[in-house]
Structures are given as structure tokens and as C-alpha cells.
């Protein structure tokens, strides 16, 4: 599977994303600089990694959502190809309109880094097909702005359409309805605050994120 990892000047999970993808797919992803305007020929999977894309001085992900590479990512998503945004990547996908809702400052107002218990709410997506529905996972989180917010109508629709993919076991940030990860309506764009790329190795963070990348490989 040909993959691409988008690199903004303040991305800091790009190497972790690169290594996780290489570990699972056996293929090195292309590292695509934010000032590019096209994805490499034949790219299937696009990952927008965590970090502080442009320092997060305005609103997290807001400047990145206007960067040169974004139109190419939006066009790629429109073809139905998989796009995954993790942490700052999730923020960028909501800011760019690829996903509904917004991520606000954590309810506790502090940065939170811990291993978060998650439940797989929908195992019927191309990101989660290798999980059992209802499976309980432990995946690291590390963010200051992960408090998922959307209006009640949107939340109802997300729940109704199976777009809520991961839910927190113990809400760490005040997210509406304990939401940790969602997809778009078509199910090919997913955003999540927990870091699956930090959970693909028994020696670091556990292996509960492995099946996510394996699901993608299986669906490609």
C-alpha cells in the first residue's frame, strides 16, 4: 500500500507515523512537505500526524488547514481513499471541514498525557475491520485541545450513522459523549485524538494500535 505522511513545520509525530506504517505495511511512506500541492502519484493512504503544525498559536490546526497541500488531501478524500488524522491531524481535518465538529481546550485546561482506555464502537470501517466491535483498547493520548464538540443534532447523526468509531472508557478531556474518534459520512476519513502509531510495539506503548494499520492494509 502506498502511503503518504504530511509534514508541517511543527509536526512532531511524523517519524512515529512513518515507522508505524512501515512496520505494518512493509513499505516506507512518502513524507510530503506542507508546501507541496500534490500527493505523490499512486498514493492510497494519507496520514496527517500529530504535533503543533504551525505552533497552534491561532487555533490548533487552523493555519495548517489553509496550507498548500490541503486541497490535494481534500480531493484525495473525495475519491473515497483513506485519510487518517491523529491528534493535531484530527484538529486539522475538522478545521478543513473534512470532519464535523471541533476540538476545544481540555475541560481540565491542562495538557493530558496518559494511556487512555478506549472502546471500539464501530468495527465496520476500513480503519477498524481487524478489531472486534466493543473491543477495549489502551492507546496513549497526549494533547491540550482534545475536547470534541459538535451540536446535539450532529452528535445524534454521528451516533446514528455509526460514525463514532472510538469512545473513551474514562473521559480525559470533556469530549461530548466520550467521543475519541469519528469518521466522515462516507467512512473514509477518520480523525482521533489517541495515538495508534504510539501503540504498535510491545516495547513502547503496547500493541493495541497495530490492528488499525492492519485494517487499512487489509482493505487496500
Amino acid at each position, binding site marked *: 500500500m502506498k502511503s503518504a505522511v504530511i509534514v508541517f*513545520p511543527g509536526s512532531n509525530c511524523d517519524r*512515529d507515523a512513518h515507522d508505524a506504517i512501515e512496520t505494518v505495511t512493509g513499505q516506507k511512506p512518502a513524507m510530503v512537505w506542507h508546501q507541496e500541492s500534490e500527493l505523490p502519484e499512486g498514493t492510497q493512504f494519507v496520514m496527517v500526524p500529530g504535533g503543533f503544525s504551525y*505552533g497552534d498559536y491561532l487555533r490548533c490546526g487552523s493555519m495548517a488547514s489553509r496550507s498548500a497541500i490541503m486541497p490535494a488531501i481534500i480531493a484525495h478524500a473525495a475519491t473515497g481513499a483513506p485519510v487518517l488524522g491523529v491528534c493535531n491531524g484530527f484538529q486539522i481535518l475538522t478545521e478543513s471541514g473534512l470532519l464535523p465538529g471541533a476540538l476545544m481546550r481540555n475541560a481540565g485546561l491542562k495538557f493530558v*498525557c496518559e494511556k487512555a482506555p478506549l472502546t471500539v464502537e464501530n468495527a465496520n470501517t476500513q480503519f477498524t475491520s481487524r478489531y472486534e466491535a466493543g473491543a477495549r483498547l489502551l492507546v496513549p493520548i*497526549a494533547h491540550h485541545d482534545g475536547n470534541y464538540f459538535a451540536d446535539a443534532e450532529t452528535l445524534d447523526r454521528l451516533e446514528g450513522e455509526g460514525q463514532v468509531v472510538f469512545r473513551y472508557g474514562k473521559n480525559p478531556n470533556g469530549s461530548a459523549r466520550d467521543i475519541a474518534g469519528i469518521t466522515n459520512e462516507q467512512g473514509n476519513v477518520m480523525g482521533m485524538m489517541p495515538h495508534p502509531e*504510539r501503540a504498535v*510495539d510491545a*516495547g513502547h506503548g503496547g500493541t493495541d494500535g497495530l490492528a488499525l494499520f492492519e485494517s487499512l492494509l487489509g482493505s487496500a
Partner: protein
Amino acid sequence: MTQYAEGITAEIVKEHGINDEEYAVILDRLGRAPNLVELGIFSVMWSEHCSYKSSRAHLGRLPTSGEKVIQGPGENAGVIDIGDGQACIFKMESHNHPSFIEPYQGAATGVGGILRDVFTMGARPVALMNALRFGAPEHKKTTHLVSGVVAGIGGYGNCVGVPTVGGETNFHAGYNGNILVNAMAVGLADADNIFYARGAEPGQPIVYVGSKTGRDGIHGATMASAEFDDASEEKRPTVQVGDPFTEKKLIEACLELMATDAIAAIQDMGAAGLTSSSVEMADKGGIGIALDMDKVPQRETNMTTYEMMLSESQERMLVIMKPGREDVAYEIFKKWELDVAVIGETTDTGRMVLTHKGETVCDIPVAPLADDAPKYERPYFAPEVRAQLNAKDVAQPSHMGEILLKIMSSPDMASKAWIWKQYDRHVMADTAASSEDPSDAAIVRVHGTKKALAITTDCTPRYCFANPFEGGKQAVAEAWRNLTATGADPIAITDCLNFGNPEREEIMGQFVGCIDGMAEACAKLDFPVVSGNVSLYNETNGVAIPPTPAIGGVGLIPDMDQRAHFGGMREGDILIVVGETEGALGASVYLKVIENREDGGAPLVDLDVEKANGDFVRGQIRSGRISACHDLSDGGLACAAADMAMASNMGIKLAHEGNVPMHGYLFGEDQGRYLLAAAKEDAIAILQDAKADGVPVHVVGLAGGTAVTVNGAHPLELDRLRAAWEGWMPGLMEQLVEAAE
């Protein structure tokens, strides 16, 4: 010769922290009176912070060389060999004064500064650590300072994308007026691609990269070289403001530039900014420099040379390039959207010449700035060493379980999860053990290998106060022990020597005592000092902090499959203490928490025993016989057992026998000891090996149940212990929220 140049007065010279004797040297070296720019440059270069004028005479006694040392003190950071052509580069530095005045920015820029020291040398930073000391928990400023410092450390490290993997936090009334914020950075580089401040030659372009220069932090180094008084908070404008996003870009851009062969010498602009970076490279290269101040990227209008030379604006570097290679820097730094400008060139004159708006505003020889910096043999007297305390003279409590609960939920012993949850400990995906894990040292894998770095920060200020020499020894020994307890080979240390006013003989005596103790421990344990920092004048209204020589230790785990932690104890495991227990309650946590006393002598460290016991434990870890290992330090055997029990979710039945009183046995802080847990057959093998090696070992208990007990009595249920241990710090910090509401 006129005594003062136009516009300069005796008062202005004094405000620059230059005394009469020092001023006379300046007059002699220049052959004329200095102008304001020149005076400012001498002032910062000769400040305590930059020149180590009170400490240099003693630092030379610390061992700094060894088989694995590639670069000792004198460069931006120390460099050690970790095999396979790889090097580890690390340093610890204080940011005490600014953090007290403005906790968020003070701590944040402390992290930024120490990161630059490490990547300046060509290393990719892979881990951050810290050693924090705050005043008494009940002091009115403490929660505010804790909250700001922690947010600042996290705010910077999290954004830069370097994991903050560990540290230590103490509370003591001795820090009420001067908190300590010591930050350590650790990086990895190829051993054949390390960059130094030395190496520049005449005729090379001087390239400025990074952020623009503003008026922030002017005279920060001078501030850090003076005591505080009640008006110190007025110094807030001398605290710099950090921008971790720019630092992140600077790291990536510098590492890209370093992958080319275009650099002759490189230096970050830290304390005393443009002045110290340019002087240090010129001095180490034995050359001169000429800078055109009009070319310096400026954030504000109408800046004077004085302001530009003394600004401590953050996230800036100075690079001396090979001639004709400036384009390489321009291309890389433009890509990262950072300022880049050729601001001058190196010369063969040995002079520092600055021009601004067509005029020469400074023309002074470089050598005196570095070589003639004052070096004081300050008078001192050795502080009185407190007498040892006999445990038999301390009242025996009736219920050890309740005592253990009280100690484990006391400020220094309680869980610091409230702090480390605010630090990204996992970014870079190589953290094998951090603050959240039951490990005596943080463990960070060397990317793509089976090797890992073990990293620790240690110091027990109450021992240093009771007995500077033994305290200095103990700080080094404890760092060595913590690395050993993970199975690592300890390699080298960095130090951050925090003391009061060196012009007071008693304080200077503490400094000398600690240095001598450290030197002995470094020599005996083959654990040299490769980098460090001295922070003096940690004193307010004449009250000094407890002597605090913080040690940052680094070791190597050759194979990740052969290491230990203290969360692996299983039911039925035998518990063994390596080392002798005599019940040292002097200057102990027990005495402070239970008796509200801080008297008695510091525990003594026998370095031969320390080494023999540690080498034995490391060997046993590598043999794979041990299911859990923990060093014995603050709070002694009972607290180590409590840690192991909570982490393993398994009770421990301790047994007490012999002549040592039970409280001394359980809570004594005798040195050179470890607690091991092993299955019965492994335990027998360990005991046999110990006998053969002449290492003292004692079976002290058995794993099982849901409580820590002693002789079948004094039960403390783990659930209750955990709730108290975890609850103290959130309870303290909630007061802050309530105060704000």
C-alpha cells in the same frame, strides 16, 4: 588615562556588577576607558553565570575523563561513546532565578536553552528530564509556582516534540524564596559528526539564524548572578519569552545544515546571547570577529548595539560557515521560514569589532573577555558536620502501617502524577520507561537498536545540608545506583550545582564540601562529569537554599531484554535486601515527616561497598533471575517495598529481626542498598552468588496478600496506600483552583 568614558559613571559600572578591581583590569587591557557597549560586554562575560568566577577554582577537582568520554566540560554539552559509532550528548542547566519571577516563561526557556546546548553539537534531542525544588507546600506562592513551572516545561517540551521522561520534585521551606528549576536534555548523534564551538578560522562568514533579536532578557545573566530581595519581581522584564514552534524549526534546520559539510563552528545564543556566542567561538578559535550590527535581524526598531549584544531573545544560533557556503544555510533556513543573515566575518586581529550605522561602537581584544575573567579563591570555612543519630534515641511508633501511610503520602514521597501527566512522555515512540513506570531511571531506546539509554536526576539536599561532603558523594552514588537498578552500565554525569551566595564563607564551604564529595564518588565509581552548570546566589534577603548539587546520570542498557524494573514481583517471590541496614535515621524522611525534626548526620556512603553491591545487582539482573529490583533511598526499605507492592499490585510480608530498632530497620536510609524480588529457586541462586562474591544479602520478606505487613502485623492495605499516595498532590493543587475561584 581617564577613569570613565563619556557618559559612564562609577554608579553605572557598579550597576553592571563590575567591582573596582575588575574595572582596573578592563582599563589595563583596553589601555583606555570602556564605552557603554564594551562595559556591557565585559559585564556579561565576567558575570558569575558566564565566567564561573567563584566556582572555577574548585570545579577542576571533578574527574572529567574516562574511556567513554568523547567531550568533557568546556563545550556546549558533554559527549559520551555508546558504541556502534553512536554518541550520547547531554547537559543539565538551571533556570532558577527567571522561574521564580515568571514561572511559565522561566521554565519554558530553561527547556529551550538546554535543548539548544544539545542540538548545537549535532545531536537530535531524544529526552528531557528535570529536577525541581519548591518551597513548603503550605507557602503562599508554592502552588502558583508549581503550576506555572510545570505548564512551562510541558508547554515547551510537548510542542518541540521531545519526550519529558522523568525527574524529581522536592518541597522544602528552604526554597520558599528561591525555587530550583533544573532541566536536562539528552540527544543522540553519530560519533564522527559532532559539532563544536572551536574550529573557526579567519576569513569565514558569521551567519545568524533563528528568531529575530528583541529587547527581552537584557542582562538576564547578570540577574542570575545576584541575590534576590523583596523587589525582585520587578525584574520580570529580564525574563525571556520562549517560542517552542521556532525551536522545533530551528532543530530541524540545524540538523539539516549539519548533514552538509558547510559548518566551521556553531554556538547557540544562550545567556548573554550574541556576546557570549561570538566571543566563545572567537576565543576557542584564537581569532577575531567583526560584526555589522545593522545586519542583525531585529524585532524592534531603533535597537542599540548595547541592546542587541546583551539581548537574550530565544531560539537563535550563530554559525561560522566555510567560505562560499552561505547559500547552503540560506536555502535550508528559508525553507523552515527562519531568519538567516550574514552579520560579519572572522578576522585574524584577535579583536571584537562592532560597527553600527557606519561607526565603530566597540573595539576590544577577545582574549581578556574569556582568559582574564576574574577567578576568585573565595574564603570559606567547612560547615559543621552534624553528628550521627542513633535510631534507639528516636521514639518507636506503635503501628508501622500507619507510619508508612503517612510517609508515602508526604510531599516528597507522594505520587507526582499531577506533574508528569502534563508532559508528553511518549512522542518519538522510543520511551520504554518514564515517570509513570516503576523504574528507577527513565529508559529511552536508541532508535532502531536493542540498546537504550537509562537517565536519572538525583540529589538529596537534606544530606548536603547536614554534611556537604557526604551529601555530594551520595548524590553521585544515588544516580549511579538508580541506573544500576535498571540493569544499565552507568557512564557519566552532568551536574547542576545550586547554592547560595558564594561571598559568604559558610556557603562557599558547602560548595567546596559538595564538590569534594562528588569528586570522590565520580572517581571511585568511574562516573565522570562531562558537562554542567553552576547556579549561585540562590538566596533571598540573606537566606540561602539548602545546598543542592543536582546530578543527571546517563547509562547504557546494551540489550533491552536484560533489564529490570520494580513492577514485576509475583506471588511467592522472596524479597532480598542487598547491603547492610544499620537504621540510619539522621536527616531522614522519617525524622522529618514523623518527628518533625531535621537533625542528625547524613548517612555515610562507602563507595567500595556501593560499587560491589551495584555490580552484583547488575549481574543478577542480566542473569534474568530477578522479577523486580528497586534501589533503597528516601524512606528506606518500607517505602521501597510500598512502591514495589503498588506497582506489582501484590502485597509484601516483611519480617523484622535483629538488633536494629524496627523504625530504623524499616525507614533507615543506609546507603548502597537494593530490594530484589525473585522466585524461590532464583532467590537461592542469588544468595549463593552473593556469598561467593562477599556481598551482604538478607532475606527480608515474601510477596503475597493485599497489604504491606511487618511480622504479620502493622497491616497497610494497598488500596488505602494507593489512594493516599496518589491523593496528596491533587489535593494540594486543588487549593490553587479554589483560591482562583
